[in-house]
């Protein structure tokens, strides 16, 4: 059974068909890529899978469950982590609190613990802090605990987003243009970080990316989207040599 299984998913925004008859399948531990020109519908697909928007038609199964009616936070708690194309961090919260917040659904001390500062609450908060710091170290931001996110450089903010998504214990991680705004040095770092978390945690990853080298390096399979439809699908080599892809996408902005 695939980890995530999307069938015939379509979404309209008014008259605009942002995603049309989209199908997708990913097995545990795989890394897939999603590419396509601006406005092709890539981020919309992420938002549909994570429940931010609901599809007009189609079905989504995650870990064997039909999640079409699930609210966003429940889908996340099932093990679907994500980052956002335009960073969505909490500007008044420390880095550590970001990571700990993503453990929200794992908290069992309840309101009693929240109000009365019980032993159970303190234990759990402490354990969560330790777990959070491990995750931060994994992503290479272990020393930033008390910093507020607006004070961090862009590249580190992106890592905070990844660390935060990892803290929900994901089985599948959706990364929306994780390299946006990064220089080539930060880029190489990020490739290593992603490889590292993939090898270490065994999470499946689906990433949206514009930088071809990055996609080709990391992904086993790639889908190309144009005007909300998949125009090509296959291994990196197949995609690179596909005439429709070259025509619609690669031909215009040669980034390889």
């Amino acid at each position, binding site marked *: 059974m695939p980890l995530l299984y999307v069938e015939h998913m379509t979404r309209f925004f008014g008259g605009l068909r942002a995603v049309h008859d989209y199908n997708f399948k990913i097995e545990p531990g795989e890394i897939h890529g999603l590419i396509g020109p601006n406005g092709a519908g890539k981020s919309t697909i992420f938002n549909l899978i994570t*429940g931010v928007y609901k599809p007009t038609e189609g079905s989504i199964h995650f870990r064997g469950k039909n999640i079409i009616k699930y*609210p966003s936070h429940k889908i996340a708690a099932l093990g679907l982590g994500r980052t956002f194309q335009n960073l969505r961090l909490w500007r008044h919260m420390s880095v550590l*609190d970001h990571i700990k*917040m993503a453990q929200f659904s794992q908290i069992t001390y309840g309101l009693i613990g929240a109000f009365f500062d019980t032993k159970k609450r303190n234990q759990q908060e402490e354990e969560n802090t330790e777990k959070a710091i491990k995750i931060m170290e994994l992503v290479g931001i272990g020393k930033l605990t008390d910093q507020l996110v607006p004070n961090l450089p862009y590249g580190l903010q992106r890592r905070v987003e990844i660390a935060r998504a990892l803290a929900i214990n994901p089985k599948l991680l959706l990364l929306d243009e994780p390299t946006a705004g990064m220089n080539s040095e930060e880029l190489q770092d990020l490739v290593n970080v992603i490889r590292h978390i993939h090898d270490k945690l065994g999470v499946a990853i689906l990433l949206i990316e514009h930088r071809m080298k990055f996609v080709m390096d990391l992904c086993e399979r790639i889908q190309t989207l144009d005007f909300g439809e998949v125009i090509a699908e296959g291994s990196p080599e197949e995609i690179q040599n596909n005439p429709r892809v070259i025509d619609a996408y690669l031909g215009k902005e040669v980034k390889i």
Partner: protein
Amino acid sequence: MKATGSLPAGRSKFKIYRDKLLAPYIQVPVLGWLAGLLISTLLETFIGPYLAMVLGMSDVPALFGFTVVLKQPVLIPGVIIYLLIIYVLPIAIGARLTKSLANYIAGKLQQYPFWISAVIHIVLLYVVINTWAVMNDYRVLLAKLIMIAVIVTLSLNVINGYMGEFSCSHPGFIALGAYTASIITVLFFVNDSVLGAALLPPVLAPFLFPVALILGGLMASLFSLLVAVPAFNTRGDYLAIISLAFTFIIKSLLENLQIFGGARGFMNQPNLATLPVVFLWTVLAVWIINNFVRSTLGKALNAVRDNETAANAMTVDTKKTKMTAFMFAAFWAGIAGGLFAHVMRYVNPGSFGIKKLAEVLAMVYFGGLNSVIGSIVGAVGFNLLSEMLRPLEIFKWIIIPLLLILVMIFRPTGLIAFKDFDPKKLLRAKNKKEEDK
């Protein structure tokens, strides 16, 4: 660190002098300040009245002499001398002299469970407040009202600060708590013309009072759903308008409920909200609310405020979080209302309108959003200021808004905003260098 660092060029003499003056006080722990305050209040109890007489005042100046000075400017030198002898010097000298002892005790206390140290500090604080207040009835009343204001401000800060929504329903919640608790205590312990003879002997009253207060809080919580359900089920900023409507509805509802006195109000509440009772409820409120906002469940409010989509994507049940926090805040507003009704021993719907709302909002925004300390400072500062300026009558309502505007200009989120309040850190000994974090 500050005191020994090299002085940057261009620092004024005044600043250097000020730093020199304040340097010894950096190491005074809270316990030391409490000792200073205790000495000061005891001094006032014993020599205050005589000193006041010698200095030409008819009685001990009730509120640091402001009222006196504004009415009789000739007494300015006398008031200044009084303030120096009774407050400034004893606190300054007391804090300094007891510094090492206080640090020693605070350090020792750190070896025991935290609650022991907390209880000792709280008891001391109560003794200070009590000694200061019992000098006259006005001070007792003011102290009670200020503490109630602390509860109200803190609870509104949970919504308007921590959660970042704009709610106007607090007067309604306070009214619900006030009326519910009043009805219960009057029904059970007072021979009332409408609610009938007392049902229970008055000795039980102090024990049932907490129950009445809690029921008042729960009533406010329950009614808060009328606001929360429509406001948080839609995405958008409907809360302000719905909550404002709520406050008006509750007010006119009470005005039309003739059985509870209608617009004339409801009175005869038994005298149950004594100074220690109000103090204990305030401590409880501060403790519980602070616990809540420092837990991950409470911090979820910040996540919801700063980016709700991200909060959802990180498994935060945002709707439940908002609802819980709103009901929680309403509960404490209700408790405050119950206390208020039994302090005044009279309530009328008129006191829970727009004016109350303006006052509560002012305290929250003046003290600082997203900050427990800020709310305490806001409530205490605002009320003291408002009382001290009372003799100015109409000008008071020019000065206070002006001050608020100044705060908003220079500190848009309030005096002490976005500050974490860690009681363990606060009560620590201050003589050691920060060796362990």
